[in-house]
C-alpha cells in the first residue's frame, strides 16, 4: 500500500526533525558549546524517516556512530539526546555513552555501536528473542556501505537467513567508507546483490526518495512479520558533512558533491509535497516552527543539566550488589 498523505507529512516531519537538529548540533559545536565527536547524517534523513513510520514502539532498531537520525526518527526524545551529547547526567545514558553509544529502550533503540558492523549480530539476537518468545516485533539493523565488507555483516545475514529471523538489514549507502570510495573498497556496486549469497531478498532504492524507501521497507517488514525471515534493503544516499565533524572532505570529487547537494532529500521532498498538494508551504512551515521550539527547549534542558557525579565511574559496571 503506498504511503498516505498523512504518512507523507509524518515522514516530512521526521526529516525536518533530523535536519534541524543536525543544523543545531553543528552550530553548537562551531560555537564551542558542544564538545563531541560528531558523525553527521545530514543527507541521509529520508531513510529512517520513511522506515520508522512503518514501525511501532515494540519494534527494535540498532544503529551505529552515525545514527542520531535513526534515533530521532524512532522516537528518542530530543532533550534526552541533547543532554547525552552534552555529557550530562540527564542524558539517555547519564552521559556515560555519548554520541556513539546512545541507548533508549523505551523507543526501541537498543544499541548504538562505535564498531563498524558490530550491531548486526546484536540485531540478530533481538530478532531471535522475539522469535523464541513468539512476539510480533521486527528489528531494523542500520549500517553503512563500509560495514558490508566486515565479517559481522556476512555472519549476521547468514545466521538471520538460517534461522529466519525478523531482521531488516538496512544499508544506508552514502558511497564512502570513512574516506574510501565505494569503488575502491567494495567489490560490488550495489550492496543489495550480496543478499543472494544468503538466499534472502535484496533490493536497492533511491535513499533520497521517501516513497521508494517506504515501499521497499514495507515489503521487507511484511516478510519479517510473516515469519519469512530477513531482507537486505540498500538505500543509496550521500552524507554532506564528511565522515566526522571537521573532515574537510578533500577526497570527495567536487562535481560529485555538487550533484549530491542538488539532490538534497529535504528540500526535494518539501517541494514535492507542495507541488503535489499534499501540504501547503504554510503547513510545513508550522511543522518546522514546532520542531525549532522543541530543539530550543532541548538545548536549554541539556545545557542547564548537571554533569554526572564522579561516583558514576563505579556504577553500572556490574549489577548492583544484591541484584546479581
Amino acid at each position, binding site marked *: 500500500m503506498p504511503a498516505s498523505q498523512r504518512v507523507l507529512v509524518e515522514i516530512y516531519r521526521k526529516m525536518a526533525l533530523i535536519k534541524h537538529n543536525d543544523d543545531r548540533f553543528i552550530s553548537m559545536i562551531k560555537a564551542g558549546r558542544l564538545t563531541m565527536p560528531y558523525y553527521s547524517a545530514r543527507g541521509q534523513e529520508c531513510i529512517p524517516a520513511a522506515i520508522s513510520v512503518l514501525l511501532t514502539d515494540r519494534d*527494535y532498531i*540498532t544503529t551505529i556512530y552515525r545514527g542520531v537520525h535513526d534515533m530521532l526518527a524512532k522516537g528518542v526524545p530530543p532533550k534526552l539526546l541533547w543532554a547525552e551529547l552534552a555529557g550530562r547526567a540527564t*542524558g*539517555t*545514558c*547519564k*552521559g*556515560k*555513552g555519548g554520541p556513539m*553509544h546512545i*541507548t*533508549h*529502550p523505551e523507543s526501541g533503540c*537498543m*544499541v548504538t*555501536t*562505535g*564498531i563498524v558492523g*558490530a550491531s*548486526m*549480530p*546484536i*540485531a*540478530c*539476537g*533481538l*530478532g*531471535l*528473542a522475539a*522469535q*523464541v*518468545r513468539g512476539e510480533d516485533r521486527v528489528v531494523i539493523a542500520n549500517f553503512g556501505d563500509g560495514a558490508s565488507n566486515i*565479517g*559481522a555483516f556476512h*555472519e*549476521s545475514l*547468514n*545466521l538471520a537467513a*538460517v*534461522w529466519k529471523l525478523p531482521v531488516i538489514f538496512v544499508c544506508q549507502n552514502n558511497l564512502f567508507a570513512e574516506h574510501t570510495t565505494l569503488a575502491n573498497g567494495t567489490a560490488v556496486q550495489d550492496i543489495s546483490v550480496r543478499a543472494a549469497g544468503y538466499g534472502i531478498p535484496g533490493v536497492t532504492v533511491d535513499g533520497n526518495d521517501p516513497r521508494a524507501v517506504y515501499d521497499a521497507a514495507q515489503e521487507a517488514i511484511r516478510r519479517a512479520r510473516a515469519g519469512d525471515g530477513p531482507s537486505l534493503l540498500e538505500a543509496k544516499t550521500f552524507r554532506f558533512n564528511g565522515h566526522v565533524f571537521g573532515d574537510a572532505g578533500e577526497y570527495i570529487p567536487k562535481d560529485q558533491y555538487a550533484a549530491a547537494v542538488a539532490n538534497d532529500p529535504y528540500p526535494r521532498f518539501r517541494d514535492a509535497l507542495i507541488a503535489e498538494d499534499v501540504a501547503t508551504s504554510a503547513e510545513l512551515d508550522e511543522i518546522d516552527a514546532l520542531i525549532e521550539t522543541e530543539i530550543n527547549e532541548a538545548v536549554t534542558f541539556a545545557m542547564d543539566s548537571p554533569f554526572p557525579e564522579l561516583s558514576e565511574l563505579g*556504577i*553500572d*559496571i*556490574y*549489577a548492583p550488589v544484591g*541484584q*546479581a
Partner: protein
Amino acid sequence: MSQTLVKPPAKINTVQAINLAIADAMEADENVIVFGEDVADLEGGGIVKVTQGLSTRFGGNRVRSTPISEMGFVGAAVGASLVGLRPVVEVMLMNFTAVCMDQITNHAAKLRFMSGGQTHVPLVIRTMTGAGFGTGGQHSDFLEAWFCHTPGIKVVAPSNPADAYGLMRAAIADEDPVIFIEHLPTYWVAGPAPAPGHFVPLGKAAIVQEGRDVTLIGYSRSVHDIRAAAVNLEKSGISCEVIDLRTISPLDMPTILASVAKTGRAVVVHEAVRSFGAGAEISARLHEQLWTKLKAPVQRVASKDCPVPFSKPLETGFLYSVDDIEIAVRTTLANA
C-alpha cells in the same frame, strides 16, 4: 514441560555436572536458551556432549546448533540478553573467543555502563581449554587474563564437578556476562555430586584445605596440582593452606588476604602463561596490601611464555609441574 527428575548418582564428572546445571536452569526459567556449534542432539549434543539431550528435552526453539560464526552467534546472544533472555552459548574452544572478542569486550562487557544502566547482558559464554591432549597452539590456551582485564565481565573457572554445577547455576542466574572456563583434560574426573539446586556464589573462593605455613592459590586445573603438592609437602612437615578461587574476576580478596595474613607466604599457580597473568595481579595486590605481613615475596608458578607446543615432551615442558609448585613453596620458606 514437566519432567521426572532422576536422582543423580553419588559421583559425577564435570561434563555431567554442567549438563545437569543447564538442564535444571532451563527447567526453572524458560528464558534460558542454549546455542553454539553442534550443541543440539542432531549434531551430537556438543563436541564433548556437554549439551547432550537438551535439544530433545527442551526443543529446537530453545536449543540450537549454529553456523561456525562465533562473532555472529555471540553477538546474537548479546542481543537476546539485552531484552531478557538468558543465553548460555558455547564457544567451543577458548582460542575461538579471539574471533568474537569485539562482541565480548566492546559490547557484552560495556553495554550496562555505556547505556547508563538501561540495559545489561545476562549472558554465559561456556568455553573449554587446557593443554595435555596435543591440541597445540590454537586449541589449548588459557586466556582468562584477557577477560579479567576488561571491567564488566565475570570470569569463572571451576575445578571439580560439584563446583561446576553450582557455579553454572549462579552464572546463569547472574545479571552480568560470565566467561565460564571448562578444563578439557579434567572433564571426566569424577567427584561428589552436587545437591540439586546447589548454587556456588560468584566471587567467592573456597578454602579447600587449611594450613599454617604457606597459602597455595589456584583455579581450574591448578587446584588439582596444588592439592597434590600440599600432600607431598605435608610429608616434610610443611603445612599448606589451599585456596580454589572458583571465580577469577572479581577476585575474592577478603578470603585471599585473610589466608595470606595468617600464613605470611603465598604461591599462585595457573596454567596460563606467566607474564601479565592472573598470578601477577594477585601477587601485586598481596604486596600492596600485606607488605608488612609477608614473610617472603609471593611466588608465581605458571606455564612458559610461549605458544602451546604440540610435541609431547615440549607440551609437558611448557606446563608447570607439581615439582615446580613444591620448589616455589620451598623458596618462600627459604626466605624466612
